[in-house]
């Protein structure tokens, strides 16, 4: 842990409001991106991101500095996301955002529109949004452990060592689960791009 990070954490323990702001500004994007891709819903992600930072500030005394602060923070974000997924699975009507196209689950009775149908459309932004929605739906079709690995490795581009510290999994397990997850995403995308 760098000296600057240690000082920042020490100020955080003193409940320094500016240090608090620096933490949110530094790690806000990473935390939000992880949660958003885990949940696939912006409003839910905002709520969970708020809870994550509040938990961090309330439990900063328990951070002993054995791991990097970012690792500790992302572990909390990952656990909150998994808990939220379980909570939403028990209450399927919650967390459905009609504006959020990625929320529509892939199913045999309601297949997603093929990407090819939009390739020739003049609006490239629309095409990018469609592909993003397809990717998000393919991620959402994974179980929560595979989802976390894909998000940490491929979306957040973290090293296997960092992922191991966050998830507590050995590298071999991470690699094999990640490979299965990537293949599953590819298969889902192939169904809609052929």
């Amino acid at each position: 842990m760098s000296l600057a990070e240690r000082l920042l954490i020490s100020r955080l323990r003193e409940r320094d409001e500016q240090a608090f702001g620096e933490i949110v500004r530094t790690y806000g994007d990473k935390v939000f991106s992880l949660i958003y891709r885990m949940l696939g819903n912006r409003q839910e992600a905002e709520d969970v991101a708020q809870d994550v930072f509040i938990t961090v500030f309330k439990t900063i005394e328990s951070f002993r500095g054995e791991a990097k602060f970012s690792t500790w923070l992302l572990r909390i974000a990952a656990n909150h996301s998994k808990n939220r997924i379980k909570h939403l699975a028990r209450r399927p009507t919650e967390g459905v955002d009609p504006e959020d196209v990625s929320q529509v689950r892939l199913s045999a009775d309601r297949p997603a529109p093929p990407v090819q149908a939009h390739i020739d459309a003049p609006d490239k932004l629309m095409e990018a949004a469609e592909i993003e929605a397809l990717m998000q739906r393919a991620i959402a079709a994974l179980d929560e452990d595979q989802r976390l690995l894909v998000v940490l490795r491929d979306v957040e581009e973290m090293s296997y060592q960092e992922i191991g510290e966050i998830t507590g999994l050995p590298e071999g397990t991470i690699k094999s689960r990640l490979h299965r997850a990537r293949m599953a995403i590819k298969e889902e995308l192939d169904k809609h791009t052929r």
Partner: protein
Amino acid sequence: MDHAQAQATFSDYVDGTLPPAQREAVDQHLSACIQCRTELAGFRKTVGSLGRLKQAAPVNLLGDIKQQIYKRSRGRFFAPRWKLFGRIPFEWVSLATIIAMLVYYIAMLHGAPAGVRPAP
């Protein structure tokens, strides 16, 4: 090496973590197998596309969190601490006050003041 064996190495191949000897074996298979080359291209594209899914936090995230903290702690979370004794333990002070008042009340109910005798 067959198709299944080659495709099982795709993650390591794309990540660049495949040992040199194994990478060479996969390369040999790929040079002769159009099906696996196509699969690998699709796999690489999928992994690359995932890297473009980063999402920026909403601009008001910090403000919203601060608002939540102020609301939940009733403004005490960021309140200044005492220099020597840290934060004022409002909860303990309140509890001690309640207990003191209760003890005083019970003493007033049951105890007679020392040195005072009831009137004959």
